[in-house]
């Protein structure tokens, strides 16, 4: 049974449609990431689930309850805000106890639960501090504790890591994931950071301009995007335009200005259709010693950039067509050098050209 269900959810602000006909569900215990560029409607969606915005159309269900018209205080959602929204006049312990007081939990019981959750998030002993006396990471964990202590039916996270520095953000990703698993709580996670979504989520919902573009497991989103827009948004990729020549099941042959390429692609591409081939830089090899059956394109090295663990080489394979190739480059290529780039059939993924 879906723990969070959104059906045909739509929100208009005057002339602007922020969210349009969004339908998705999260199963019990699942973590679903709402991913998209800023202004795509992901935060508006989260605020509708929390009850802060009223949908223009559509239904929201939590478990078997239709909560579409319900006030936020009756939804039992644990919400973590981007800027944490800790009550500045209350101590850490009072912040965490707030939701329990609103539920009229007896004082002794409340104190025990607050202490337990503060220990759990590693803030034991900091209960008497004020929020402003905490570091960013500690404030973040206080916000998580405050949301979790009420045993919410769902957890809603709005860009929870956006205000932390890069190193802490990396740590907190895994921390939030393990905490979410441990509590087994169904979670909606809003982020614009695709790496965060891929690491954390069981399924990722990619939103663009208020429309759900794809809702799939991270591997599917990454390796088998449904559209050029999703392919371009998730990770780094090369997009090579072309025309479908033939197809057999998922396998297809595409003619590009750089040559004929064998790959795979979305089911609705028929021969003759204009397509866009997405080839990830890390799947392309430089030099000719690739395995048999691999695609080979000839090109000229334009630029080579050392990135530490990997090297990024830009290879021009056609008029105005530059492929980025990333890997542990053994032979240092120089600008102007003629090279062959190769990639296996399953590294080229075709999507409709304009969608």
């Amino acid at each position, binding site marked *: 049974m879906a723990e969070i269900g959104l059906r045909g959810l739509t929100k208009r602000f005057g002339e602007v449609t922020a969210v349009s006909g969004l339908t998705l569900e999260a199963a019990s215990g699942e973590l679903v990431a709402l991913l998209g560029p800023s202004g795509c409607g992901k935060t508006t969606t989260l605020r509708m689930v929390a009850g*802060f915005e009223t949908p223009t159309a559509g239904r929201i269900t939590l478990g078997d309850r239709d909560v579409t018209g319900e006030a936020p205080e009756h939804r039992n959602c644990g*919400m973590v*805000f981007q800027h944490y*929204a800790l009550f*500045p006049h209350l101590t850490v312990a009072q912040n965490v106890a*707030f939701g329990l007081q609103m539920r009229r939990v007896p004082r002794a019981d409340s104190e025990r639960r607050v202490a337990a959750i503060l220990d759990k998030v590693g803030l034991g002993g900091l209960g008497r501090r004020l929020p402003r006396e905490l570091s960013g990471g500690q404030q973040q964990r206080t916000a998580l504790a405050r949301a979790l202590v009420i045993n919410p039916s769902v957890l809603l996270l709005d860009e929870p890591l956006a205000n932390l520095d890069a190193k802490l953000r990396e740590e907190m990703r895994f921390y939030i994931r393990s905490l979410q698993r441990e509590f087994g709580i169904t979670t909606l996670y809003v982020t614009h950071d695709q790496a965060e979504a891929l690491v954390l989520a069981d399924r990722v919902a990619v939103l663009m301009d208020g429309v759900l573009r794809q809702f799939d497991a991270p591997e599917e989103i990454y390796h088998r995007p449904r559209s050029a827009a999703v392919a371009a948004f998730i990770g780094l990729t090369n997009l090579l335009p072309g025309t479908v020549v033939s197809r057999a099941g998922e396998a297809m042959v595409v003619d590009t200005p750089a040559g004929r390429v064998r790959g795979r692609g979305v089911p609705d591409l028929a021969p003759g259709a204009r397509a866009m081939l997405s080839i990830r830089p890390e799947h392309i090899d430089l030099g000719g010693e690739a395995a048999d059956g691999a695609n080979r394109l000839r090109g000229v090295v334009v630029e080579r950039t050392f990135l530490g663990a990997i090297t990024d080489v830009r290879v021009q394979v056609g008029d105005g067509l530059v492929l980025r190739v990333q890997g542990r480059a053994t032979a240092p290529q120089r600008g102007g050098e003629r090279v062959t780039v190769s990639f296996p059939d399953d590294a080229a993924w075709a999507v409709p050209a304009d969608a």
Partner: protein
Amino acid sequence: MAGAARHLLLAPAAVLLLGFFVLPYLNMLVISVMTPSPTAAYLHVFTLRNYAAIVGDAFTWGVIWHTIQIGVLTTAIALAVSYPLAYHLARAPRRRKGLLMALVISPLLVGVLIRTYGWMILLQDTGLINQARAALGLRPLALMYNDLGVLIGLVHVFIPFMVLAITGPIQGIDPELELAARSLGAGFWRTFWRVTFPLSMPGVVAGTILVFVLTISSYVIPSLLGGFKVLTVPILVIRTITELFNWPGGSAFAILFFVITIAVLWAYLRALGRAAHPGS
């Protein structure tokens, strides 16, 4: 050097306060212990009899008590009217905020005398309101020359001060804090009392103290709308000095009331501090 320059910034305000506030008060303190005289402003003879006379007089304590009552009532009513207004202002879109703010301040654009005469036209026994009531066959109401008239006039003029004092602090409250409280299970009113109101306290404290102090020291409104039937400390002090020519007596009364005012404010702040940190 930078430190010295920074202290220099205090000079204009310090000179002003010293010359027009501290020194006159000290002068009044001196006069209050001199001996009254029918032939001069006062005689240079030290006495504590002025204070003894006031402290021993039940009438003056009645006036002090009444003044404080009017002060507390005016402040409470102004706060009750101003808070929702200030909240609306603080959360209004910027363009509408400017217009609303101009409207809130508009009572201050008219001088106190003209504004008070305006109220008299409305409130007096044969004023607009009572004429309208008579036309409808209703009994006339005593709206003036009593506490009610004084309260109406005072609340009207002090609402802008209260609104201005409270709007800023409310504007500083992140609206997400209210949403956080809601999502944690607090309804509208509990969110207000547990989050919004406590966080707006700096504005409430500033506004209430400002309005209270202005009210208990106001003279024109209580005299015109109270018609000298409502006695407050400022009215009595000025009468003592200008009608009874008793400078020392009036000064002693003013000094005593100054001390009482400080004591009231101190008790108020202490009570608020207790309410904010129970148990400490």
